[in-house]
């Protein structure tokens, strides 16, 4: 089972290109409000995360993923449970 910190670190890597110049990321950073991701970018982000972790992320859970921390927790749940 991957640790929270290792997943968080990988998510930071994936998200860094989406961050605004000079913006630092934290667990409480909000994907839409703070990063300003539009629906197209969110979908692209999702694909990148799916590739990196070799999982399929159901779109149904997207409304519950507000912050980076939400994303990490859901991802750990998906990675550790058989789909």
């Amino acid at each position, binding site marked *: 089972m991957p640790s929270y910190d290792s997943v968080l670190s990988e998510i930071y890597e994936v998200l860094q290109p989406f961050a605004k110049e000079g913006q630092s990321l934290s667990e409480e950073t909000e994907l839409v409000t703070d990063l300003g991701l*539009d*629906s*197209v*970018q969110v*979908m*692209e982000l*999702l*694909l990148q995360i799916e590739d990196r972790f*070799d*999982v*399929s*992320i*159901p*779109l*149904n859970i997207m409304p519950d993923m507000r912050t980076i921390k939400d994303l990490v927790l859901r991802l750990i749940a998906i990675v550790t449970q*058989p*789909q």
Partner: protein
Amino acid sequence: MTIFAKFQTLAANRAELLASGINPFGVVIEQICSPTEGVVNGHRVILVGTNNYLGLTFDPDCIAAARTAVEMQGTGTTGSRMANGTYTGHLALERELADFYGYPHAIVFSTGYLANLGMLSTLTGRGDVILLDADCHASIYDGCRMSDAEMIRFRHNDVDDLEKRLRRLGERASNTLILVEGIYSMLGDRAPLADIVAVKDRYGAYLLVDEAHSLGVLGRHGRGLTEEAGVEDRVDFIVGTFSKSLGGIGGFCVSPLPELELIRYATRPYIFTASPSPAVIASTRAALRILATHPELQERLWSNARHLYQGLQALGYTVGPEPSPVVAVIMSSKEQVLACWHYLLEHGIYVNLVLPPGAPKGACLLRCSVSAAHTPAQIEAVLEGFATLRDTVLAVQEAC
């Protein structure tokens, strides 16, 4: 904070558009002169954005059938088939659709949008999985959202990505419905259907193909990509619409599976809405007969489609991935596409404006749709319009 707070971004975008003096989403076609010509802002325009693929909206047989139906059966059914009764025309159209596809079962819905909503919200439920192509139409996404099934996207037209996701599902693959389209509505490309069918068979999943933009367009008999790819006996559900090649309004699903008849009793977008009016049913039946017996319409459509696609390529435009009656011209920015769309309309050419997130990958498009009813001279006139657009608006923008 009010219930309208969520519309702030939309309101700002709308205000920006209106301030530019262009309202692309408020175009009024003051007069519709033929399947390919109308009057907008007092000027005659060539319609190259109507999805009227076979040009049947003014067909005399379709009009006569609709007129007779109105006179004999009235203007509307005033209710749903479940609650208020089925007209014989509804049953006849379902039988004719089933015969046309060579499947035993068919359901008619009141619109194409409702056909997807009705099928997807009912076919799958909690515990099931939907694997949908990322570029699927909004009606497919909306139907999936209503279903309570787990909804997973795969990369557009990427069979390896689809297979990877089926493999991850393990035993749940047999509870999975794969969703693809015959021709995708924005870029005009078709699904690699034979390969998709092979994968779905390998994993024991189900497959629904939306042929909204491919009915009457692909296949020797006009039955769509499923016919063209030679997989009609291996597809579980085909959804389509009457509002494009058939020139009316409505939708349908046909299937070789007897369970389709059960869906009729459970699908809320069928049960709780008014059934198609007699005139719509009559004109659609006439249009389906024409589609099935006039292959020259499809030939003319493709001749026009290739003419426009190749002509735009020759002018240096970036177009969709393959020739198709949906010809997408890909522009570089929102400002550019707005200026170009406006220029074309002012010069007598109506195409569809597509702004992000309406097209895949956030693209800005001038979306054209070709008709069998376009004359070669009209296609030439459209190309001339695009040529002067390139030499004026685009040349100025490049120089800046």
